[in-house]
Structures are given as structure tokens and as C-alpha cells.
């Protein structure tokens, strides 16, 4: 599918809008609360956010397929990346991350977020560790992992930079581990 067609798909669908600040503040509060609950053990916080995202992703893929009207399997991982960035993120967050840094075997790419709607207003706590350990938007990693798993792709996702930490860009790395084979239902006999 061509790039222009993909970006149109994201536009075309009529999506109910939600006040961005409501989402931002809700998500921010969740992260802050998790940080409090785990007593600032940020690696645990990252893990929890990823888990929450994974559970969202498992369901969200259904919503995505219904809204995007793309009842066709992507032929390769590059096309998958295109659909994630230009349709998926467009529908659910109204942003279009840039796809870059493909590895030569087309199994690994980066999503670079020019703007991150989850991170508006956010300043990481200045306890000296959050800046190095917390991935504030880590829920997105989980969402991608969960959603792709439901369409037979096992991926590994993680952030490698975040403007909240003082980096120049917000970049997420997505790696295709394997295509999960369709499992046949157990035979009747």
C-alpha cells in the first residue's frame, strides 16, 4: 500500500475526539501514582506501564481493525511499520511518528515522535534517578507489543530516547522477533 493511501486511511475515519488535556492529566496521574506505589523503583514502573499497555494493545487491535477498514494482511514488516505510524497512531493519538533507522534485514525500525501528546506539561521529578531510569511514555511500547501479538507478530519494543530526559528526540525502537505461526485448533478425534 502506498504511503499516501496509508495516511489517507488515518484521516478518513471519523473518530470521536476526546479532550487532550483530560488524557494527558489522566495518564500523568497514573504514572505519578505508580511511581508512588512502587516507591520510585523506576524499572518496576516501566514494567508496569508496559504491562498495562500490553493489555490495552490486546484489545485495541480489534478497534484498530474496525476503524481503519484495512481488512488485509500487511505483506511485509515495512508495510506494518507504515500502518502503525500513519494509521494506528493517527487514529488513537492523532500524531504521525516518523519511521527511520531500518536495519538492512528489515526487522528493526525506529519511530521518532515529533510531538508526544502523553507528555504535555510533564517534567520528570528531579530526584536524580527519574531522568535516567523512567520511560514516561512506556505504555506505548506495551500497546504496540500487545497489538502486534494479536496479528501474529512477536515484537520487542523499547524507548531509546525521550525529550523529557533532555534528549533531542523521542525515539522508540521496534524489533520483529518472529511471525507467530497460525496454530491449528486441536483436532476433533
Amino acid at each position: 500500500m502506498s504511503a499516501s493511501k496509508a495516511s489517507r486511511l488515518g484521516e478518513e475515519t471519523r473518530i470521536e475526539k476526546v479532550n487532550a488535556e483530560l488524557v494527558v492529566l489522566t495518564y500523568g496521574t497514573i504514572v505519578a501514582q505508580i511511581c508512588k506505589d512502587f516507591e520510585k523503583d523506576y524499572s518496576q514502573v516501566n514494567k508496569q506501564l508496559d504491562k498495562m499497555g500490553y493489555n490495552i494493545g490486546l484489545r485495541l487491535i480489534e478497534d484498530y481493525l474496525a476503524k481503519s477498514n484495512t481488512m488485509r494482511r500487511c505483506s511485509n514488516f515495512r508495510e506494518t511499520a507504515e500502518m502503525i505510524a500513519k494509521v494506528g497512531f493517527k487514529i488513537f493519538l492523532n500524531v504521525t511518528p516518523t519511521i527511520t533507522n531500518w536495519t538492512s534485514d528489515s526487522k528493526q525500525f525506529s519511530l521518532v515522535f515529533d510531538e508526544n501528546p502523553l507528555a504535555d506539561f510533564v517534567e520528570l521529578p528531579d530526584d536524580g534517578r527519574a531522568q535516567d531510569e523512567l520511560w514516561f511514555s512506556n505504555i506505548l511500547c506495551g500497546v504496540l507489543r500487545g497489538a502486534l501479538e494479536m496479528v501474529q507478530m512477536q515484537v520487542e519494543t523499547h524507548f531509546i530516547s525521550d525529550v523529557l530526559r533532555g534528549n533531542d528526540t523521542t525515539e522508540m525502537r521496534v524489533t520483529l522477533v518472529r511471525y507467530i505461526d497460525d496454530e491449528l485448533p486441536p483436532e476433533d478425534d
Partner: protein
Amino acid sequence: MSYYFAIIGTQDNPLFEYDFGTSKQGGDGIARFTEQARQLNQFIIHSSLDIVEEVQWTNGQMYLKLIDRFFTSYISCFLTASNIKFLLLHQPPSSSSSSGLPASSGASTLTSSSSTTLGQHPPTSTSTSSLSVIPSLSTLTGGGNSSTTTLVGGGTSRTSTSIAANPTSPQTEEAIRNFFTEVYENYVKAIMSPFYKTNMEIRSPVFRARVAAAGRKYL
């Protein structure tokens, strides 16, 4: 002209403080408080909180304009909806501030003068009475200013409309209003951060930089 800006929380606890000098008319933006005045400023701001509480119910405005005066220190106030107070202490140029401040007299002058400042505001102050304070202040400063200018002489570049020379002029009032409005916008952004809790000290370096920028822009 030197400024001392403080944000006071709902429990009269300080959330943020920043001092700076004027950037208008070739000012370098560095506060010219003496070491003693620096410490005194916090007391002056704190004592004017009483006046804030009196004035805040007299009108529906967030910007309460000039509310208090202690020798050559003038205090303007801005209230946010959640009763966080922005207080700006401003002090006209150093020639008058060094002579005006009680350098040697100490605590006895401090208490007596603060009681006179309080005495200017009747306990049941209405909007008219709070307004009447300002003309009386302006006559006071008018006298103070003329003496200052004669002392300094015609060599200074400051005109009569300059913000620095006239703490009570409408131009100053407007400049401070602009300053407060900009700080308020940035304050709202700062407290929207999910890791900020009510009445917590504002440590954000971004916010500090923006307050500094607002100070450079308007004062």
C-alpha cells in the same frame, strides 16, 4: 530598580522566590539588594500577607495592584483562583533604597513602621478605601522622587514615566500586570505536571527561566 518575586502557597508557605533587577533603560537585570535587604525582603513579603487577606475580598480581581509599602519597598499582589499568592516587591533605584532602609535602627523601627503600614488600611476596608491608599502613597513617593532626582541630578536617563522611578504610576501598574499574567500562564503549565503536588515547592528550572524571561520583558 530591584525586584523580589515570591509565590506563596495556601498555608502561607513559600513555593518559589526569585530576585532580579530591571532590564529597562540599560539595566543589567541584576538585583541591587543589600545583603541585609535580601533577608528583610522575606519578612516584608510575609507581613504583607495580612493585607492581601484584607484586600482580596474587596474586589473580584485577581490582580490586586499595589497593596503594601514598607519604606521604599512596594508590594504588588496577584491572586490565583486557588488562593496562591504572587507577590512582587519592587524597590526604586539604589540611591533612595540605601537611604530609605533602616540600616542601623534594627527591630524597633521594623515593628513600628509595619504597624503604621497596617494602620493605613482600616480593618473593614472596602474597594474605595483600598483605592484611597494609592493616592496617598503616590503623594508620598512623589515627594520622595523629586528629592531623589534632585539628589541624583539631571544626569540620569530616567524619565518621569519610567517604571523604575515611579512605583505607583499607571505604567508600572500595567507592566506588573503583564508580568503577573505571563507568570500566571507559566505557573499553570508548571503545576499541570503530574509530578507536582499542591503547595509543593516549584523547583522546575524551566519555570524559573520563564519567570526570568517575563521579568526581562516587562520590568
